[in-house]
């Protein structure tokens, strides 16, 4: 039972990293980035590329957020900023972009699946119970990063600027805040978090360019359940979806677990459109 719990927590940790990027980008810019799953995949393939080069997974895990954050920054500068105030067109454009990235990766790396070695082989023992050390490491990383993100968005100068831009963009700009740069920073940060999630997940999954879609879909469930109003809500949404997925997969087949969570999310969006934890507007 403890294994299922920890499986759920480690899935929740990864989903939180992916979904928080989706949520902060949507919260600030009202942009839903359908290529967000591809940011995850780009993080994963950064690890693959650096693993081929250096023979170690660690370089990729450390560098992936910077690589993907840079890519996100370029995407914001070249594409997203042309599309503000046109939410439906943004969906189409980012969907096109996701196809471009996914197929580009297939051309570059080949479309087949691959598995990377797990860098931490040790298992953690307590009592008569043991659990893979790498998954514990993953949970630890997610907690540290989430704490850093929460700090960044609540206690810093940057947080004040972001909030000002969200509340009254024109007024914030009149006060000398460079709103366009805030957009770039937030978009790059969201992409970097998804890239980090992809990087740390790489050794645990069978990687191919298509898996981004599944993490995108689950992140949407997280965002629907947790709402986009508060970062804590998104984290709690990730915990619900992660634990729900682990326990339901334990009880029935994984695909039915996904269906059950999806139906739950649909019913929830009907009753509480702003999510479980956000205050209704």
């Amino acid at each position: 039972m403890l294994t299922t719990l920890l499986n759920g927590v480690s899935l929740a940790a990864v989903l939180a990293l992916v979904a928080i990027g989706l949520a902060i980008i949507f919260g600030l810019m009202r942009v839903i980035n359908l290529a967000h799953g591809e940011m995850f995949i780009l993080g994963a393939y950064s690890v693959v590329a650096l693993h081929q080069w250096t023979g170690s997974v660690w370089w990729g895990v450390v560098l992936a957020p910077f690589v993907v954050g840079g890519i996100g920054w370029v995407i914001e500068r070249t594409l997203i900023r042309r599309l503000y105030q046109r939410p439906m067109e943004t969906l189409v454009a980012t969907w096109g972009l996701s196809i471009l990235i996914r197929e580009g990766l297939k051309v570059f790396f080949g479309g087949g699946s691959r598995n990377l070695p797990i860098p931490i082989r040790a298992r953690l023992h307590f009592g008569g119970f043991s659990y893979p050390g790498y998954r514990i490491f993953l949970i630890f990383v997610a907690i540290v990063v989430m704490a850093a993100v929460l700090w960044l968005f609540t206690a810093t100068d940057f947080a004040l600027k972001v909030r000002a831009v969200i509340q009254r963009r024109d007024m914030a700009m009149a006060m000398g805040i460079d709103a366009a740069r805030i957009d770039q920073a937030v978009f790059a940060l969201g992409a970097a978090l998804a890239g980090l999630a992809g990087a740390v997940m790489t050794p645990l999954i069978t990687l191919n360019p298509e898996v981004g879609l599944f993490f995108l879909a689950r992140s949407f469930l997280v965002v629907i359940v947790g709402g986009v109003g508060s970062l804590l809500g998104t984290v709690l949404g990730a915990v619900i979806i992660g634990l729900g997925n682990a326990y339901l997969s334990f009880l029935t087949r994984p695909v039915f677990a996904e269906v059950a969570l999806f139906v739950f999310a649909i019913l929830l969006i009907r009753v509480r459109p702003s999510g479980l934890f956000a205050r209704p507007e």
Partner: protein
Amino acid sequence: MAGRGEAAAVRAARRVGVSISLLRWAHWGAVVLAAVALWVVPLFARSYFIGLLGRFLVFGLAAMSLDLVWGYTGQLSLGHAAFFGLGAYTSGLILAQTSWPFLGPLALVLGILIPAALGFVMAGTLFYGKVVGAYFAIITLLVSLILEQLAISMLWLTGGINGLYGMKPLAFGPLSVDTLNEAYYFIVIVSVIAYVLARLLVESPLGKAMDAVRVNEKRTASLGYSTAAVRTVVFTLAAALAGLAGVLYVPLEAFVYPSQLGVGFSTWIIVWLAIGGRRSLVGAFLGAFIINYGQSLLSERLGRYWVLATGVFLLIVVLVQPDGLLGIIRDVKDRLMRVVRGSRAGA
């Protein structure tokens, strides 16, 4: 030729003094001509081409279905293949039963009604809960993804990844849709009927309400329309139409498989419509024809780049030409008209 295109055509007609009723007659005349042309194709075309053309028409129907939702009411369905595939699976499963009577009519009717029911439930739940725009689009995407996964994993019902095959022909009493030519003629008849009905829909008062809901939802609501009702009705009809396209695909392909429900195929439908031109029923068919014909010409050499190209197409449609090919045709025509008028003014 509806929406923006229609308005432009009407303006052009007024300018040169052609009455609008004449324009309308010209449109219906063109429809009859196109129907006759499609009808005589099997007389001199190779069976490979007949198969292709039948497939294009089915895809055009799917794109026209998306057009009603996305083009006319402004709600993007990112998972439209869910309804197409559900129609195909429903009719395929019924046609696989050997003992039931009236298999053909049952497969056709349920293949339309079951996707329509799913569309009605989705639209009713979401639109009446004010879930519109991006959230709606994402939920349609999730529905398509989940139905594909279910079709893969529910082996006992769907045959899993291998899909359904060995169906009996779609038969209506003595009439049977069995050979390629019979399937093709059946598709042509149904496509023409569906086009005429869709055209009548977008020109009806409900069609005007669809435009109004897209352009300004608040104002439409303040005029006393239930915007949720308009969207729900249209989405249900579109789901039925997509299901019908799925039913038609079964005799053509003799095979039903999970990706017909999935996100990849949904994306194709979006690409056909976006390239052809949204808010134009003709554009839906045009996009399906051109993209698929291009694919059949190029795929031997460039198959792996063709999907990549669809990503580029979507970006072009958003950034450069929102009205797709019909928009390009209109721009070229406008420019020619300006040149012609300019030279006349100079003379």
